[in-house]
């Protein structure tokens, strides 16, 4: 039993890191633009497909990761300029409807372009190691480390980079940031592009663990959304902790119930958070 718990801890942490990568993009976008991006999971999906196509043509996984992040990042910038920029400052409902619409369009596009069958990316790191009773693939750990590295790079960029300070200033006070000469519309587009690129990277990292299908996006959006609410809307550190927390909960729950039922604990966590601590579990108590 103890061994099972330890294996599930590793599983939970691995899934949690990939989920954290999706959720950090979502929370970053929400924090700065007050936009809940319901198409975020579909950017994960498109990233997965872009990566799969690139890997199929070049055989190079890392190139696939890079190409998917860049292409989807640019695509995200284009999406933001054409559909979200005109809606900034309007009723949040309009952006929810707009991103939901984008989500549907992207799914149908993927169905048309890549077909209904799942696509796979072979694991770039072969080999397994012995984890108690399991032959555990090294790639799973590799994916978690990569996700962690990307989140770490984002953190350093936000903390020390010139544009990172612009992003934090704009997130805190859009009006004053503009008055200080920060080109706020450009910062919004940039943040959306970064979020999209991170979603695409998660899609590529996740693809060798499961498969890429045109309907996978909704599940990612939903899980990332739960994480963002539980972690505190717009709070990056909170989202990362919440992603690990939720994934660990699900991993432990699947010891007792089937993995598809284990998702229920996420919703329970979401409901309890909204009931008892709507500002989020992993943020300081608001004064």
């Amino acid at each position, binding site marked *: 039993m103890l061994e099972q718990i330890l294996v599930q801890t590793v599983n939970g942490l691995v899934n949690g890191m990939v989920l954290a990568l999706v959720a950090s993009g979502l929370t970053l976008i929400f924090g700065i633009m007050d936009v809940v991006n319901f198409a975020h999971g579909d950017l994960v999906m498109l990233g997965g497909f872009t990566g799969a196509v690139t890997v199929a043509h070049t055989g190079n996984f890392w190139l696939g990761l890079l190409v998917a992040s860049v292409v989807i990042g640019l695509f995200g910038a284009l999406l933001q300029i054409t559909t979200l920029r005109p809606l900034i400052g309007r009723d949040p409902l309009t952006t929810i409807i707009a991103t939901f619409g984008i989500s549907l369009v992207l799914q149908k596009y993927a169905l048309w372009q890549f077909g209904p069958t799942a696509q796979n990316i072979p694991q770039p790191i072969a080999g397994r190691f012995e984890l108690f009773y399991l032959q555990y693939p090294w790639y799973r750990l590799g994916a978690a480390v990569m996700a962690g590295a990307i989140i770490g790079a984002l953190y350093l960029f936000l903390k020390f980079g*010139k544009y990172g*300070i612009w992003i934090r200033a704009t997130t805190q006070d859009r009006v*004053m940031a*503009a*008055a*200080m*000469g920060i*080109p706020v*519309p450009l910062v919004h587009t940039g943040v959306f592009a970064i979020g999209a690129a991170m979603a695409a990277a998660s899609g590529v990292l996740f693809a060798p663990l499961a498969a890429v299908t045109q309907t996978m996006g909704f599940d990612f959006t939903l899980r990332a959304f739960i994480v963002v609410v539980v972690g505190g809307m717009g709070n990056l550190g909170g989202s990362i902790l919440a992603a690990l927390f939720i994934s660990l909960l699900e991993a432990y729950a699947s010891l007792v119930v089937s993995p598809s039922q284990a998702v229920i604990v996420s919703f329970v966590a979401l409901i309890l958070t909204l009931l008892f601590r709507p500002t989020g579990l992993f943020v300081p108590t608001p004064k």
Partner: protein
Amino acid sequence: MLTLADVHTHYAKSHILHGISLEVQPGEVVGLLGRNGVGKSTTLKSIMGLVRPSQGRITFEGRDITGMASHKVAHLGIAYVPEDRRIFKLLTVMENLRTGLDRGGLTEARRRELLDKVYESFPVLGERKNQLGGTLSGGEQQMLAIARAMMLEPKIILLDEPTEGLMPRMVSQIRDIIARLHGDRVAILLVEQDVGLTLGASSRCYIMEKGLIRHQASSAALKADPSAIHQYMGV
């Protein structure tokens, strides 16, 4: 340098500015007096592009800036110190200053110069440069707001009630800062409730009432004959 001609501004359905006309010359300190709610802050916000005037023209150095995006207004050399200071509370003092420093065309040497100057004018900001903006006292936040505006090397600073809620000791410090900026040939459009400070710091004043400029005079004339101030401000 800065000219407003018949500027009207609305917030939703309420008509706040009913045709403001005023001007500020290079290096000049101009006071904008009036009771609460007469539209002084809205005048500054209209200049800064934070609210869009419905009518009228605002020009800066001969260029029409009416309704221009705020960040572009800032790039032209107009800095804004709002009434509520609006420090980036979760950014350190240094990062707050960097929001104005991280712009194109600024050499490393010039950056250092600007920072040194600010730390010299406001030693407390130098001591607290790695502290979060939100942990500063009200007076320190006011200094940071002014220092942050100075990072833009502005030609004019729109200063909205800088002494509001400050201790007397801080008020005299603000007076010194205004004098120092004036010495550096930075123009200031000063909105203040403190009539004494405003008349002392400025060369001319406009007095506003209900969204209109009712009176303008040199500060010396207003000091000699404060009847207009009594009339429009009730003091």
